[in-house]
């Protein structure tokens, strides 16, 4: 059946995108920051529209794209991210580009791409929406045309992206060849129907290539190498966008794909994801220690975060349906906390960057003197990353790890905890710059842009709320996780022990 109403929110977003581009087309000297606020407005509308979908029973479009709580979860998240990032960009972009409309349009479209990735229940759709997101990001990363680092970053990103998506496609072709279907349910059914499941090279290699594709998207080692360069080269708000939206989208895709389509052969891929997780978190955190550029540092730290999150994906493979719900809801709430903290951090960093124009760690020297509020905010965000109490990171990380703990995954969970301890070190090194040193140059207090300030306050409250009372967030996550695993879905089918 075809019900076009289930994507009204995305129509709003896309329409707004076109509209914004049109505005600049026909009204060239429209204030760029106003564009940003329009985008934020559109994001709000998008969000509000999305709210109507909470709790609606799942609907499917031809069985190739579904709108359920899972979709809605990421829909709202996408809207939120676009909202925050567009506000972040307002001043940043105005001072750096002549034409900003496409930028904001692309933000919105990328958001839609994320929603479709979460919603896709079929390989073609998943692939297309993934490419939609990627294309937007390629452009956004390279948006500062005159900036060498920006264009270099986007070149690296697109070349490697194309390469890995080719791998992804080949993997999908193999899976399609074996199962003769591209819908997740069809794949699941076919796989569980096969008697010689697990003995089949095509399945294994197909899974691995698919894993490569999504692994690249979420920047899991060893497919992570584009991330630091892209993060460093991209405009600061886009870096925030990369580290929140594209990661969340990648995990959304991964959850649905691995959690419903190929869950029945989880024995084929869970170990691989476990190893990737261990490798990723270790590499990310170890290298992060040695970074001097703030964006690069955060890139590596986010790679480390990805490592933790991958454990949950593996845990889905190791557990039964209930275990899947546990792991997924843990992962979802952690993504939420992570996104909130990251946006908070980048809001503050953007404010600092607008002032100092420096993106190295030393650029934060003495911030506690010149802008105590920002220093506090940054500290909150970093502590949240490190998983210290009162901030989102603590509660969400505990819930995620606890949800991901099974007999087999325990050792990686332990490694993850160890890594989050390592990460604390370089977060402290940043905090040290702000609090323990006197500012270089003028140590006079400066006022930050009220918009950024307001955004920061909102996000801080969010982070604290999730950290101190994660109950609601956690139950949303559970609701979002349920559609993937409830009876009748793939995980209900017989699976290989």
């Amino acid at each position, binding site marked *: 059946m075809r019900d076009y109403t289930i994507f009204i929110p995305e129509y709003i977003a896309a329409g707004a995108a076109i509209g914004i581009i049109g505005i600049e087309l026909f009204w060239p000297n429209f204030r760029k920051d106003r564009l940003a606020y329009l985008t934020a407005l559109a994001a709000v509308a998008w969000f509000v529209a999305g709210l109507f979908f909470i709790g609606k029973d799942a609907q499917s479009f031809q069985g190739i794209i579904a709108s359920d709580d899972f979709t809605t979860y990421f829909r709202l998240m996408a809207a939120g991210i676009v909202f925050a990032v567009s506000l972040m960009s307002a001043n940043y972009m105005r001072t750096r580009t002549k034409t900003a409309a496409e930028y904001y349009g692309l933000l919105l479209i990328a958001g839609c791409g994320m929603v479709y990735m979460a919603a896709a229940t079929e*390989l*073609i759709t998943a*692939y*297309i929406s993934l*490419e939609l997101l990627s*294309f937007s990001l*390629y*452009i956004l990363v*390279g948006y500062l*045309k*005159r900036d*060498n*680092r920006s*264009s*270099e*970053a*986007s*070149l*690296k990103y*697109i*070349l490697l992206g*194309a*390469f890995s998506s*080719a*791998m992804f*496609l*080949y993997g*999908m*072709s*193999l899976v*399609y*060849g074996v199962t*003769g*279907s*591209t819908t997740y349910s069809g794949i699941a059914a076919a796989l569980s129907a096969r008697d010689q499941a697990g003995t089949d090279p095509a399945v294994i290699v197909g899974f691995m290539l698919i894993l490569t594709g999504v692994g690249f998207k979420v920047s899991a080692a060893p497919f992570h190498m584009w991330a*630091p*360069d892209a993060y*460093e*080269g991209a405009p600061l708000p886009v870096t925030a966008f990369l580290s929140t939206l594209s990661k969340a989208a990648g995990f959304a895709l991964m959850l649905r794909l691995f959690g419903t389509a190929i869950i029945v052969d989880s024995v084929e891929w869970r170990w691989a994801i476990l190893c990737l997780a261990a490798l990723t978190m270790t590499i990310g955190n170890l290298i992060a220690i040695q970074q001097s550029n703030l964006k690069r540092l955060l890139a590596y730290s986010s790679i480390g975060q990805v490592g933790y999150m991958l454990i949950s994906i593996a845990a889905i493979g190791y557990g039964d349906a209930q275990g899947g719900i546990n792991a997924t809801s843990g992962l979802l709430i952690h993504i939420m906390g992570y996104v909130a903290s990251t946006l908070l951090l980048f809001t503050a960093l953007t404010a600092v960057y607008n002032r100092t124009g420096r993106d190295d760690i030393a650029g934060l020297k003495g911030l506690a003197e010149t802008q105590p509020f920002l220093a506090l905010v940054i500290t909150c965000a970093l502590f949240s990353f490190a998983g210290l109490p009162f901030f989102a990171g603590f509660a969400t990380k505990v819930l995620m790890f606890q949800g991901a703990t099974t007999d087999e995954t325990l050792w990686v969970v332990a490694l993850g905890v160890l890594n989050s301890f390592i990460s604390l070190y370089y977060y402290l090194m940043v905090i040290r710059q702000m609090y323990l040193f006197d500012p270089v140059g003028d140590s006079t207090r400066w006022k930050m842009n009220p918009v950024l300030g307001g955004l920061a306050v909102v996000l801080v409250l969010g982070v604290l709320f999730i950290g101190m009372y994660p109950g609601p967030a956690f139950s949303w996550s559970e609701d979002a996780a349920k559609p993937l695993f409830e009876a009748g879905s793939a995980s209900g089918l017989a699976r290989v022990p």
Partner: protein
Amino acid sequence: MVPLENYLVLSAIIFSLGVYGVLARRNAVLILMSVELMLNAVSLNFIAFAAYLDPDKITGAIFAVFVITVAAAEVGLALAIVIRLFRNRATSNVDEAAIMKW
């Protein structure tokens, strides 16, 4: 008639050549060409599967259509970026495009 395996092996070879190209070449455009080779291999795969194994749904063929579309778009975008880089650096050599590292 020609069995399915032949097509698959052929696409495997093309794909691997593409991989080799990506790994070996230094010129951004050449890397893109290699990627195109890989994508070709993929669509060949899809169509072969569609024709042999999935005649009534032929999803593979549809997939191939999308792949071709995306590939074309990708090339366009990538080349634009290459040109952008060339304007900034007067080179399309990816080894030289490495100011960001470590």
